[in-house]
């Protein structure tokens, strides 16, 4: 039987709208009377707000509303709700929002920002996570600069007996790897449009990649019931009519129209501010970040400082892995604790190591909060592991392919998180890969498979 | 907010008169590829724009030993001109690496120069080619060598009421050797980290009138005169090339910025000059 979809090339459901220009991204949704939102951002990396006077901005013709921390019903959000929507007293990174304005046009909004009287007392900041871990480092947060996983300042993953593993090893290969921070640079800027209705309901046009997460968070921030907010994800316009959704129960959640996310839209950047301003002014409010704001202040992949110490047998087997990874999380948690988790879970890469000790640290610094980007911490973990495999091969004078084949997961292996793998095809994948890359593997490797270890 | 005035200059004369009339208030607008970026970023609030798009300053002519290019000629037109490709191929090559097609379609050579960027790609080509500029104001005109034109980052010797009228380039008929390389973060749509343009007329295997131009390594695009002097009148060999490349690196006064460190720029200059001279002498 031929299937309609499985095994077939399928056209994109939104492809036609993309090529004709019909697709409406959030910024393309035009509602009459929409106000332009602009934010005042902290000029310093760390400081205390001493004066915040918005009266002259508010008095300006064309300004519909100004909000500060005082206007936020519940001023903390995030996975670990520790980030204020608008900084209250303390600012923890340069670019943190301290006030926002809604005005009739961009010029007026920007002029109003200049009229806000903001005085911040600058304090000593810490930008390097290794420095931030030292006991006498300036405090990014009152409770300390290192995120606590229950009682530990790190995520610990343990398998087997690490001491015994190192004893058993012939050589120890230890290296440090640094993965710099990276920006998603998705083409669609962080954008939000919030439209209030007389009924008290609020419609938010969002670029979110995580609609339900964000809906929940927004309800928390605004202290509204979920059914008072319609968080719409826009399907492309079809024909000439919009698909309007009447109530929460028939919200169309199937795929948002996101102009590239790559993880940059897993955190709320703009929806809370537009929502607050829309509620305050009673008018639709749109906030589109500038490219500069997006590059400088939106979330990004935080830097990693990774040390891997492996105990290796002369035959190429890794028998112990000790890894310490430090994540530069920036000023707030965002998704960082989870990113460190995922990083740590896959710390041996696709390789079986019987004795493992992983410590993943999530460290705060006075930088914009880092967060998810394509793989939630897995990519830097894999980056370090694969470099380490080459270093091991070098150390042992072995073919890098062989080191990988020897250590590759086989059916029945246990991962560091003690999951037993019951369907593995890594050896076969690598064989295929070699073939495609025009690498002629030695027979020994050609004959291996994922069913058996091939060595004991 | 002030209304502002948008004035179309229908010819050179009118452009000069408008500039004289509005003095420092007026800004010239051609393709707008630099000007409008500054406007969008709110670094510039023009009160008077004098538009040169219909001013007749779009031409490429041969005049005696020179090729004369109107300042408001878009890059695409210059790059595609048969005359430019034959007589100053270095310029066509440099332009083909400049920004991207959409920018080249409207961005003009005069605008690129008048903007005074140390990284202006067209400037390195013109420096290497020994070009000069005709500057014009209501009260007169003067001709200056490209190397005198730039006075600092974003600064040129243009007076407030003066404009670049045209670019005068000696035609390289009959085989001057040349080479160009631009080092950027990517190939297209990128500012130079270092760019090197070399024009090297060879007579009987010897360098005669060699010019080595360096971009983005000093407050202005510069000529590496000492490096050129080392080569002058000599036949190139590996040792001489090394020496010239070192001298070129010496001539730089680079800065650290997001695109590259001063250290890197100096080293890259040396490497590029070496590479390009080797290419020319091969």
């Amino acid at each position, binding site marked *: 039987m031929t299937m309609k979809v499985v095994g077939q090339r399928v056209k994109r459901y939104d492809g036609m709208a993309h*090529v004709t*220009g019909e697709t409406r991204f959030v*910024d393309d949704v*035009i509602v009459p009377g929409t106000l332009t939102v602009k934010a005042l951002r902290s000029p310093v990396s760390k400081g205390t707000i001493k004066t915040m006077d918005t009266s002259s901005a508010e008095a300006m013709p064309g300004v519909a509303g100004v909000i500060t921390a005082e206007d936020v019903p519940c001023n903390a959000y995030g996975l670990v709700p520790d980030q204020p929507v608008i900084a209250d007293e303390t600012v923890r990174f340069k670019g943190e929002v301290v006030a926002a304005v809604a005005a009739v046009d961009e010029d007026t909004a920007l002029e109003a920002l200049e009229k806000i009287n903001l005085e911040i007392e600058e304090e000593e900041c810490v930008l390097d996570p290794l420095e931030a871990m030292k006991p006498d480092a300036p405090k990014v947060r009152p409770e300390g600069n290192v995120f606590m996983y229950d009682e530990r300042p790190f995520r610990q993953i343990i398998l087997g007996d690490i001491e015994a593993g190192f004893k058993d090893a012939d050589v120890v290969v230890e290296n440090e790897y640094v993965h710099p921070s990276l920006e998603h640079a998705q*083409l669609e800027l962080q954008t939000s449009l919030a439209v209030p209705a007389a009924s008290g309901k609020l419609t938010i046009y969002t670029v979110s990649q995580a609609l339900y997460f964000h809906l929940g968070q927004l309800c928390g921030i605004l202290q509204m019931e979920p059914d008072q907010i319609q968080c719409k994800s826009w399907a492309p316009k079809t024909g000439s009519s919009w698909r309007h959704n009447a109530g929460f129960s028939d919200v169309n959640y199937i795929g948002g129209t996101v*102009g590239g996310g790559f993880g940059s839209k897993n955190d709320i950047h703009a929806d809370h501010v537009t929502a607050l301003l829309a509620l305050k002014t009673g008018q639709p409010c749109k906030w589109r970040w500038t490219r500069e704001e997006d590059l400088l202040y939106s979330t990004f992949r935080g830097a990693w400082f990774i040390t891997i110490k492996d105990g290796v047998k002369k035959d190429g087997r890794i028998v112990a892995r000790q890894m310490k990874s430090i994540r530069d999380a920036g000023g707030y948690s965002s998704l960082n604790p989870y990113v460190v988790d995922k990083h740590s879970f896959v710390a041996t890469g696709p390789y079986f190591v019987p004795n493992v000790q992983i410590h993943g640290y999530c460290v705060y610094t006075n930088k914009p909060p880092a967060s998810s980007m394509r793989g939630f911490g897995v990519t830097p973990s894999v980056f370090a592991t694969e470099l380490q495999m080459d270093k091991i091969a070098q150390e042992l004078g072995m073919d890098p392919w062989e080191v990988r084949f020897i250590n590759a997961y086989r059916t029945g292996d246990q991962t560091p998180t003690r999951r037993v793998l019951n369907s593995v095809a890594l050896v076969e994948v690598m064989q295929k890969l070699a073939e495609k890359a025009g690498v002629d593997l030695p027979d020994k490797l050609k004959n291996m498979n994922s069913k058996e270890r091939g060595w004991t | 907010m002030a209304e502002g005035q948008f004035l179309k200059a229908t010819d050179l004369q009118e452009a000069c008169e408008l500039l004289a009339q509005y003095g420092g208030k007026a800004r010239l607008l051609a393709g707008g590829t630099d000007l409008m970026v500054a406007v969008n970023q709110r670094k510039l609030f023009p009160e008077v724009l004098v538009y040169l798009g219909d001013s007749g300053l779009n031409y490429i002519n041969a005049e005696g030993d020179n090729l004369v290019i109107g300042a408001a000629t878009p890059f695409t037109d210059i790059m595609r001109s048969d005359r430019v490709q034959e007589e100053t191929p270095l310029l066509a090559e440099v332009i083909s690496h400049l920004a991207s097609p959409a920018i080249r379609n*409207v961005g003009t050579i005069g605008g690129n120069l008048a903007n005074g960027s140390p990284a202006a790609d067209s400037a390195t080509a013109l420096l290497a080619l020994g070009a000069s500029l005709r500057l014009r104001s209501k009260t007169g005109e003067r001709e200056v060598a490209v190397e005198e034109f730039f006075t600092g980052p974003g600064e040129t010797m243009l007076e407030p009421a003066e404009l670049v009228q045209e670019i005068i380039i000696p035609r390289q008929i009959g085989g001057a050797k040349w080479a160009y390389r631009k080092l950027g973060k990517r190939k*297209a749509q990128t500012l130079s980290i270092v760019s090197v343009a070399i024009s090297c007329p060879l007579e009987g295997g010897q360098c005669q009138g060699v010019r080595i131009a360096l971009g983005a390594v000093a407050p202005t695009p510069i000529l590496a005169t000492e490096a050129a002097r080392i080569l002058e009148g000599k036949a190139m060999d590996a040792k001489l090339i090394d020496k010239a490349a070192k001298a070129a690196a010496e001539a730089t006064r680079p800065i650290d910025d997001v695109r590259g460190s001063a250290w890197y720029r100096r080293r890259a200059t040396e490497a590029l000059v070496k590479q390009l001279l080797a290419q020319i002498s091969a």
Partner: protein
Amino acid sequence: MHSLELTVNGRSYQTTVTLKTTLLEVLRDKLFITSPKVGCNSGDCGTCSVLIDDKLVRSCITNALSTQGKEITTVEGLSKPGHLHPLQEAFHEKYGAQCGFCTPGMILAAKALLDENPKPSRKDVREALSGNLCRCAGYGKIVDSVMAAAEQMGQAKN
């Protein structure tokens, strides 16, 4: 305020602008033609690409008043109801669009190329699109799409 008259996709419009209004603002905010996107507002990304008198430009750094009396084409103007331009067809068929944000600009950059050079090499295509960023990085498929469209248009001519 200055009066501006221009033609977009065959229809003429009259509107008012200031000295610093860009063509992109005119299209999006005044005429509600939203296929040209705001990606950077500084001429770096190409999402705002349009054709002025068939020439590819970046509308975010085009002064609106310099387009007085000009003819602008956006991707909305390439198709007629029920009838796509071969480039649109090809971008759809060959998966040239992922998130779709760069797509209108890409298609116009490709159109400017094919209008001049109906039989481009892959290198020509890459060069012509070099100022248009696709952060979904679907470049291979984008080039495939343009090549397919070129072929299709060539056949249609013969």
